[in-house]
C-alpha cells in the first residue's frame, strides 16, 4: 500500500516551492492568530489572579475570553499551516492560482475575525471546540469552502502536470478533495446543539472508543503528511506498508468498539486505548523512512517527543482511578495544553519548516525553540500539580489560597514566555514576507513550465 501511494523513490532533495510567498503568507496568518490567542491566554491568566479587572472589561468577561482563546488556537493557529500544506499538495502555490492564495487566507482570517466578534458578543453554541453559531457558523465553513474551490481549481488546471502523472497520485488527491469538501458541512452540522458524542457515564467525558477514534484521525494525518511534504527514501517501502497495515488494524478495532456511552472502567475501553501506544515507536520509525530537510530535525524530534508523551499520558490519564481523580481538574487542562501547545504546535512548525525551505529560519532560532518547549513542559507540570491537589480537595481551585495563587502567578509567567516566543516567530514571519518575492501577477503556468 505504501509503495503504491508513494511517489517514486528518489534520492533527490524535495522539490522546490514554486512560490514561497504562498506558504509564507500561510505562516504569517497562522502566527498572527497564535500571537492573538496567546495574548488572550495571558489576559485570562491575569484575570484569574486579579478577578476585579473583569469589571473594566464590561461584558467581555473571563468566560467569553476563554471561548475565544480556545477557538483561535484551534481554528487559527492549528488550521492555517495546513492550508499552506494543501497549497503545496494541490499546486495552488504555482501558476495563476498562486495569486489567489493570499486572498483565500484573508478570507479565512476574516471568518475568524467574525468568529472572534461573535464569541466576545456572547454567541456560543455551548459545544467546546465546535463553537460556531449564528452568522459565524455559516461564515467559517464558507471560508473553508473558498479554500476548497482554490485547491480544486488549481488541481484541475494541473491535471496533466508531471507531478500528477500517476493514476494513484491523482486518485489520492481526488479522494482528498472529496473528503475536504465535506469538512465545512461537517463543521456546520457538528456545531448543532442537537448532536453530542458518546459520553463516559462515570466521568461525563469522552469514551475510550471516542478517544481512540479521534487519535486515529490524527494518526491518519501523521501518516499522510510525508507524502505531501517530501519523498520516501530508497528501500523503505516495506516500513511504510507495515505501518499502514497496523493503522488499518487499529481502525478495525475502533469500528468493533462501536459508539455508545461506555465507562472507562470497562477493560475493553482502556485496553483498546492502550493499542495507541504502539504509535510511540512506530511514528518515528515511519518518519525515518522519508527524506527531510536537515533544518527540520529540531522540530521533528520535538513533535515526536511530544507525540510520545501525549500518547503515554493520554492513556495513563484514562485509566480507572487516575481519570476519576483528575476529571474536572487542572490536570486535564495541562494535558490539553500538552496536546495543543506541545505536540500539535511542534508538528505544525515542523511542517512549516519543511515547506518554507530557505525561509525556515523564522522557526529555528534556538532561544525561541527552547523557550516555547520549556514553557510548555513547565505549564504541564504546574497544571498536573494543581490537578493532583485538586483531586483531593476541590476547595483548592474553588477558593484559592496561597498555594493556588503561586501556581497562578507561575502560570502567568509561563504564558508570557510562550507569548514572547510566538511573537518572535510572528515578527520574523513579517520579515520573511518582505523577503519573499511577490506573487506574480501574470505568469501563466505554461510559461512557468518552460522556464
Amino acid at each position, binding site marked *: 500500500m505504501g509503495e503504491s501511494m508513494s511517489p517514486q523513490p528518489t534520492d533527490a532533495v524535495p522539490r522546490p516551492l514554486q512560490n514561497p510567498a504562498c506558504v509564507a503568507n500561510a505562516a504569517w496568518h497562522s502566527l498572527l492568530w497564535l500571537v492573538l490567542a496567546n495574548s488572550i491566554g495571558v489576559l485570562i491568566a491575569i*484575570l484569574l489572579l486579579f*478577578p476585579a479587572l*473583569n*469589571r*473594566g*472589561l*464590561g461584558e467581555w*468577561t*473571563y*468566560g*467569553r*475570553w*476563554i*471561548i475565544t482563546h480556545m477557538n483561535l488556537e484551534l481554528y487559527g493557529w492549528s488550521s492555517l499551516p495546513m492550508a499552506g500544506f494543501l497549497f503545496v499538495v494541490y499546486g495552488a502555490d504555482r501558476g495563476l492560482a498562486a*495569486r*489567489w492564495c*493570499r*486572498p483565500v487566507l*484573508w*478570507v479565512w482570517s*476574516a471568518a475568524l475575525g*467574525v468568529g472572534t466578534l461573535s464569541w466576545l458578543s*456572547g*454567541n*456560543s*453554541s*455551548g*459545544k*467546546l471546540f465546535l463553537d460556531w453559531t*449564528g*452568522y459565524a457558523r*455559516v*461564515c467559517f465553513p*464558507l*471560508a473553508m469552502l*473558498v479554500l476548497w474551490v482554490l485547491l480544486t481549481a488549481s488541481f484541475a488546471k494541473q491535471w496533466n502536470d508531471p507531478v500528477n502523472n500517476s493514476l494513484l497520485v491523482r486518485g489520492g488527491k481526488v479522494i482528498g478533495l472529496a473528503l475536504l469538501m465535506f469538512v465545512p458541512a461537517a463543521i456546520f452540522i457538528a456545531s448543532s*446543539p*442537537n*448532536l*453530542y458524542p458518546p*459520553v463516559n457515564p*462515570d*466521568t*461525563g*467525558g469522552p469514551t475510550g472508543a471516542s478517544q481512540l477514534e479521534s487519535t486515529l484521525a490524527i494518526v491518519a494525518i501523521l501518516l499522510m503528511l510525508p507524502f505531501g511534504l517530501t519523498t520516501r527514501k530508497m528501500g523503505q517501502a516495506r516500513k511504510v506498508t507495515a505501518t499502514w497495515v497496523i493503522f488499518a488494524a487499529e481502525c478495525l478495532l475502533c469500528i468493533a468498539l462501536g459508539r455508545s456511552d461506555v465507562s472507562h472502567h470497562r477493560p475493553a475501553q482502556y485496553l483498546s486505548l492502550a493499542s495507541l501506544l504502539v504509535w510511540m515507536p512506530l511514528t518515528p520509525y515511519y518518519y525515518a523512512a522519508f527524506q527531510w530537510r536537515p533544518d527540520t530535525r529540531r522540530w521533528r524530534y520535538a513533535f515526536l517527543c511530544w507525540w510520545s508523551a501525549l500518547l503515554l499520558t493520554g492513556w495513563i490519564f484514562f485509566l480507572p482511578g487516575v481519570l*476519576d481523580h483528575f*476529571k*474536572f*481538574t*487542572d490536570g*486535564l487542562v495541562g494535558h490539553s495544553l500538552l496536546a495543543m501547545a506541545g505536540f500539535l504546535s511542534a508538528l505544525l512548525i515542523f511542517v512549516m519548516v519543511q515547506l518554507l525551505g530557505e525561509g525556515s529560519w523564522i522557526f529555528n532560532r534556538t532561544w525561541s525553540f527552547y523557550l516555547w518547549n520549556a514553557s510548555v513542559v513547565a505549564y504541564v507540570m504546574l497544571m498536573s500539580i494543581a490537578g493532583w491537589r*485538586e483531586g483531593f*480537595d*476541590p*476547595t483548592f*481551585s*474553588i*477558593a*484559592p*489560597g496561597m498555594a493556588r495563587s503561586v501556581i497562578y502567578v507561575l502560570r502567568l509567567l509561563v504564558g508570557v514566555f510562550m507569548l514572547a516566543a510566538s511573537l518572535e516567530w510572528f515578527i520574523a514571519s513579517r520579515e520573511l514576507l518582505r523577503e519573499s518575492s511577490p506573487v506574480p501577477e501574470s505568469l501563466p503556468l505554461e510559461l512557468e513550465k518552460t522556464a
Partner: protein
Amino acid sequence: MFDRYRSGWQGVCLVAITYVYFLIFAQFAFLSRIASLGIAGSHLKAVMAAMAIGGILFSLLTPRLKLLPSPDFRIRIGFGTCATAAFLTLLPLGIIACMAVSLLTGAGLGLLTVTLVTHLRQWAGDRHPLLNVGVGTGIGYFVCNFPPLFTASPEVQSFTAGLLCVAGIGVTLSRLTTRSEQRTAEEGLDQDGRAEKLPSGAKAQVNLKPSMYGLKPVPFTAATYPQRTFPFIRVLVSFTALVWLDSAAFFIIQNTPELKAGTWEGPIHLWVNGLLHLVAALASVWFLSRRGLSTVLCAAFVALGAACLLLLDPSRASAASVFYPVGVSLYSVALVAYPSLIAPASSVAERGRQAGWIYAIAGWCGSAMGIGMGQNLGYVPPVFVIGAGVAVLLPWVFVLFRQRRREALLVAGTLIGAFILERVLVVGPGSTQVSQIARGRQVYISEGCINCHSQYVRPNSPDVLLWGPVKSMAEVRLERPPLIGNRRQGPDLSEVGGRRSALWLKAHFYDPPEVSGASIMPSYAFLFRDRRGDDLVAYLESLHGPGTEEHQVAERLWHPAFSAMAKADVSEGEHLFRLYCATCHSADGRTRQVWKPGFKRLPPDLALGPFFYLPPSGPVAQRMDHLAEITKFGIPGTDMPGHEYLSDKDIASMSLWLSQLATQPDRKQ
C-alpha cells in the same frame, strides 16, 4: 554637533510648552477659574466663543500677516500673549474682562501654534525632527498628568502655564544658528541642494538676515516619510473628526463624576495616563516614520472611537481610560508633524496656510463641536463614531482596496454570501416562543459558564454528596446540547436549584467575592441591566431533579470526620466565618444590608441569635454536629447556602467557632 542637538531640544521644549499651555490652561484651568468667578450658562458660552473666535481668526491670519516676518519674533509674541492671558486670569475678572482674556488666549494660541508648526524645522533640528515632535508632545501630556500639577488649583495651574510661556520665550532667545545652518540658509538651499521655493519677499529677507528670521531651508523633504498623497482636505476632515471625538470624550469624562472617577482621579490613574500618553506619542513617531500618516490617523480613530463607545457604560470607564490617552497622543503628534514636516508644500507660506486651516477648522471648530456634543448630549452617539470612522478610515480603505483588490473582493463576497446563506439555512425559533428558563440557559452558554462550572455528578464518587443527586444519561441527553463542561473552577451546578435560593444567586452574580468568600468569579451585575440576569437566575433555579429530597436525607446523615473534628481550630473558624458568613450574619454585613428586603427571613446575627434551626439544648458535640451540617449543606427552603466544597476540617473549625459564639454571646465581633 552640539548645536544640532540643542536645536532639536528647542523644538521639544516649544512643542511641550505649547501643549501644556493649551491642555492645562486653555482647556482646564481657565474653565475652572471662570466657573469659580461665577460665570456660567450663556455667559460661559460667550466666553468660550471669544476664545474660539480669537483662535480661528489668528490661525487663519498668522500665515498672511506681513507685519511680523520673523518667526522667532512671532513666536515670542505668541508666548507673550498666552502668558499675559494666563496671568490675567489670576485677577478677579468680570464677564467682559473674561471675554477679553478668552479672546487673548485664543489669539495667542492661534499665533503661537501656527507659527510653531510653520517654522518648526528651524527649532526641531535636522537629525530627528519627527522624534523631537513626538517627545515634545509626549512630555507635554505627561507633564499635564503630573499629579501635583493636575490636582493643583486653577490659579496655580494658570500661573504655571504663564511661567512656561515665559520660559518658551527664553528658549527662542537662546537659539544660535550653526555654521551649516547659516550657510544653507544664506544660500537658500535644502539638504539635497535644491532651492526652496519661498515667497520672493521672504527669500530676500532670508538672504539678508537668516539668523534673525530663522527661515532655515528644509533639511529634508516631505518624501522622507512614507506617505500616500492624500488630498489636504481629507487629512483636514480626519483631524476634525478626531479632535471632535477627543473634545467630546474629554468634556463628558470631566463632567461625569462616575466616569471621572474611573479615568483620571487618583495619582495612580494620572501616572498611568501620563505614561500611556508618552508611550503612544513615541509609537506615533514610529508609525509616522514607518507606516505613514494614514496608519496613525486610523489607529488614533480606533482608540478614540473605542474610548467613546466604552464611555457609554460607566462600568467600562477604566477600559476607556486606556484607549483615550493612546488615541489622543497618537493623533496629537500627527497634528504637529503633518503641517510642519510631512505635508507636501511648495513654500513656507503654503505650509503656514495649511497649518492655519488645520488649526482653525480641525483644532478650534472640531473642539467646539465636540464640547457642544458633550454639553448637549452627555455622550457620543455610536452613529457619530461610525460617521467619524467613515471620514477617517475611508481614504485608507480606498487605498487598501486598490492595492488588495482580490483580497477585498473575495472577503466581501464571502461575508455577503455567508449573510445570505445564514438567512436561508438557519431559521431559529422566534424569541417570543422561548421560555425564561430557555433564555437563561442561553445566557449561561453565552457567558461561557461551562468553562468553570460542570453540570455532571459522577456516580459513585464524592461528587454525589457534594453536588448530587446523580442524573441518568437519558436526562443528560435530553439537553440540547448537554452542558457537562470539562473544568471546575467553581462548584458543579447540575443541582444548584436545590441548593441555592434565587436571592442568593442574584446577590452572588452582583458581587461574588462578597457572597462567596474568596471567589474568583467575575461580577455579572451587567446582566441585570436587562432581563438576562433574571433569566439566568430562573434557569439555575430550575436545575434540580426529582431525587433532591432523597439527597437531603443523605446530607443530614453526614458528619465531619472525627479526625477533622479533632483538628478543628477556633481561630481558623473565626477567620472562615468572617470570610464566608459575616456578610449575612453580622449586623453590618454588606450582603445583609444591600439585600435586606429580599430575604425570606433576615439571617440571624450570629452574635445574638435567635437560632431557629439549632436544638435549644443538648450536648456541645451534638450542637457542633448540627452546625457543621448547616454550614456544609445550608438550610433547604431558605436563603442559607451550603459550603459544600470546604474541607471537613474547615467545616469543623467553623462549627466550633459558631458553637462557642452561640453559647457565649459576650464574644461579639
